[in-house]
C-alpha cells in the first residue's frame, strides 16, 4: 500500500518532516551559531584561546587520540570473535557490550568511583604504584573508553556477517596465513563499517559529558575537556565563551564526518 500517493499529501508529509527536523535539530544549532557571533568573532575567540580554553581543547583531543584507537582495535577484535568463532560465551559478551548504551553515563562515572576511588577495590594497589586515576587524565580516559566502547563492534558485526567466510577461505587456499588474510582480505572488506564506527566513537568521545564530569572533578586548566569547559563558562555567565566552545565542538565532529566522506568519495571515484 502506498501512503500519500496524491500530490497534496506528499507535500504535506514533506513539510511535516522538514518542520519536525527544523524545530528539533536545526533551529537550536543555528541559534547557537547565531548567538556565538552576535557580537562579532572576538568574544568567542577570546574564550577559546584563553589558557583554560586551549587546555580543554588539547585534553579533548588527547581523549580522542587514546580512546578511539583503543576501541577500534578492541571493537574489530571483538566483532571477529563474535562472528567468526562461535562459542557459548558469545551471547554473554554480546549482551555486556551493550551495557554502555543501556546505562546512564553518570552511573558509569559513579561505578568508576567505586572501583578506583577512596576505599575502591583497586585503590590500594594503584596508590601504592603511584597512579592517580580519579580527578586526573587516566580516569577520564577510562570513562571515555567505557561510554564509547560499543560503536565499532556494533558497526562491524553486520558487515562481517554479510561478507561471509568464502573470501577468507579462498585467501587461505592461496597460501595466506591468518594475519595476512586479516590485513589483505577481511579488513579491506569491512573497512567502511569500521570507519563508520570510528566516526561515531570519535563523536561520542568528543562530546562525552556525564561520565567524564563525575570522574574528572572538572578542574579548570587541569581536568576539563571542552564539554566541561562549556558548562563552566555557562555557569559563569560567559555566554560567548560557552557558545564559542560549543561551536568548536560541533566543528570537530563535523570534520570527522567530512573526512570519512572525503575518503569514501575518493575511493569510489
Amino acid at each position, binding site marked *: 500500500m502506498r501512503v500519500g500517493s496524491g500530490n497534496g499529501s506528499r507535500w504535506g508529509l514533506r513539510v511535516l518532516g522538514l518542520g519536525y527536523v527544523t524545530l528539533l535539530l536545526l533551529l537550536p544549532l543555528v541559534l547557537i551559531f547565531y548567538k556565538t557571533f552576535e557580537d562579532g568573532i572576538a568574544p568567542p575567540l577570546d574564550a577559546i584561546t584563553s589558557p583554560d580554553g586551549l587546555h580543554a581543547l588539547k585534553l579533548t583531543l588527547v581523549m580522542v587520540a587514546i580512546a578511539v584507537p583503543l576501541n577500534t582495535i578492541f571493537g574489530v577484535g571483538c566483532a571477529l570473535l563474535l562472528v567468526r568463532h562461535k562459542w557459548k560465551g558469545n551471547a554473554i559478551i554480546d549482551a555486556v557490550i551493550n551495557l554502555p548504551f543501556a546505562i546512564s553515563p553518570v552511573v558509569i562515572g559513579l561505578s568508576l568511583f567505586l572501583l578506583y576511588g577512596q576505599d575502591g577495590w583497586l585503590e590500594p594497589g594503584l596508590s601504592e604504584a603511584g597512579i592517580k586515576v580519579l580527578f586526573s587524565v587516566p580516569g577520564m580516559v577510562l570513562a571515555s573508553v567505557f561510554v564509547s566502547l560499543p560503536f565499532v563492534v556494533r558497526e562491524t558485526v553486520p558487515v562481517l556477517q554479510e561478507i561471509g567466510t*568464502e*573470501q577468507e*577461505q*579462498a*585467501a*587461505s*587456499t*592461496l*597460501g*595466506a*596465513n591468518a594475519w*595476512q588474510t586479516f590485513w*589483505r*582480505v577481511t579488513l*579491506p*572488506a569491512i573497512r567502511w563499517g569500521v570507519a563508520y564506527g570510528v566516526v561515531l566513537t570519535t563523536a561520542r568521545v568528543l562530546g562525552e559529558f556525564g561520565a567524564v564530569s563525575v570522574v574528572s572533578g572538572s578542574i579548570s586548566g587541569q581536568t576539563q575537556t571542552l564539554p566541561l569547559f562549556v558548562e563552566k563558562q555557562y555557569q559563569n555567565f560567559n555566554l560567548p565563551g560557552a557558545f564559542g566552545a560549543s561551536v568548536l565542538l560541533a566543528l570537530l565532529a563535523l570534520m570527522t564526518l567530512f573526512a570519512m566522506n572525503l575518503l569514501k568519495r575518493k575511493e569510489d571515484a
Partner: protein
Amino acid sequence: MGISVEGARKSFGDFQALDDVSIEVPDGSLTALLGPSGSGKSTLLRAIAGLETLDAGRVLIDGEDVSKKPTQKREVGFVFQHYAAFKHMTVFENVGFGLKIRRWDKAKIAARVHELLELVQLHGLADRYPSQLSGGQRQRMALARALAVEPQVLLLDEPFGALDAKVRKDLRTWLRRLHEEMHVTTIFVTHDQEEAMDVAGQLVVMNKGRVEQSGSANELYEQPANEFVMSFVGEVNRLGENFVRPHDMEVVLDADERTEEGMVQRIVALGFEIRVEFVLADGTEVWAQLTRNELQRLELQEGQIAYLRPVQAKSFNGSSPSDGQGASTPPGPEDEGDVEKSTAV
C-alpha cells in the same frame, strides 16, 4: 600428485556428512565427486583442502599425510561455487594474490598474471573489478587465481552451479581442454551426472556420506553396483525385482512368456527420440525409449495394449540398501557387506 582419503568421518551435530569414506585419485586424473545434495561430496572436497577438519581418518597428497597441515600449506587450488572473488581487488590483483603472498617481485607477478589471463581468456579485463564481470568471467578469474600459484591439486566445488546452462556447457568443455593441457590432478564436485560424465575420466558416486561406487562413466552406467548408482547415472524403470533402462525396453505387439502387458498412456515426441509411457496390469508406470522409426513401424496409439520385453535387466538382491532417487523401493536388509566403499578409480 595423487590424492587419497582414508576412512574419513565428519559429522555436523546429528548430521553424518562423511561416514567412513575412502577414495584414491591417481596423479594427473580428472575426477568427479557425484551425488545428490547432502551426500557429503562438498565436505569431502573441503576436507582435502583443509577447509574442514575430519573427526577421523586422514588425507594424503602425493603420499604425504596432510591431515594436520593448515590449508595455506597444502598447496591446493580451490574454486568455490560462488567464486569467492576479492571484491575490493581488480582482476589483476585477484589473480596475483597468491603470488604476492609468496613475495614474488612485481615484474614476475605481472608476467605470470597476464599469462594466466590469456589462458582463461580475460586479457583486457585486468583492471576491472569483480562486480563488473559476468558470472562466467568471474569463475574463470577464480580459476586463474587458483592456478597462479601452481597448486599440486586443483579442487572445484560445484564450479558451474551458479551459471546458466549455455555458459555452463562452454565452461565444462573448456575445463576438460585445460586439464588436457595442464595435467594437474583435479577433483570437481557436481550433482549433475551429465556434467560429471562429460568432463571427468573417473567418477565417485556418493550418497548419504558414503561412496556408493567409483569408476569410469561407462563402468557406472553398464555395471552399476546398486540401484542408487543405477538410478543416479541414468534413467531407470523398475519391474518387480528388476531394473531396466528405458532404451532396453523392447515394445512388441504379440505376447510371449517373457513379455509384460501394458497400456500405452502417453506418447511424447522429443525429436528423434520418442518416450512411450505405459501402465502395467499391477498399476506400475514405466516408460520405453523408442526411435521415430520404431514408433512408425509399431503404429502405437495412446490407449492401446502392447507388450514390453526387457532386453537387459539388473537386479541387486542383497545389495546396497540405498534409497535411490527415482526408484522407490523399501530399504533392503542392513547388510552392507558388498557395498563398494572404496575402489581405485
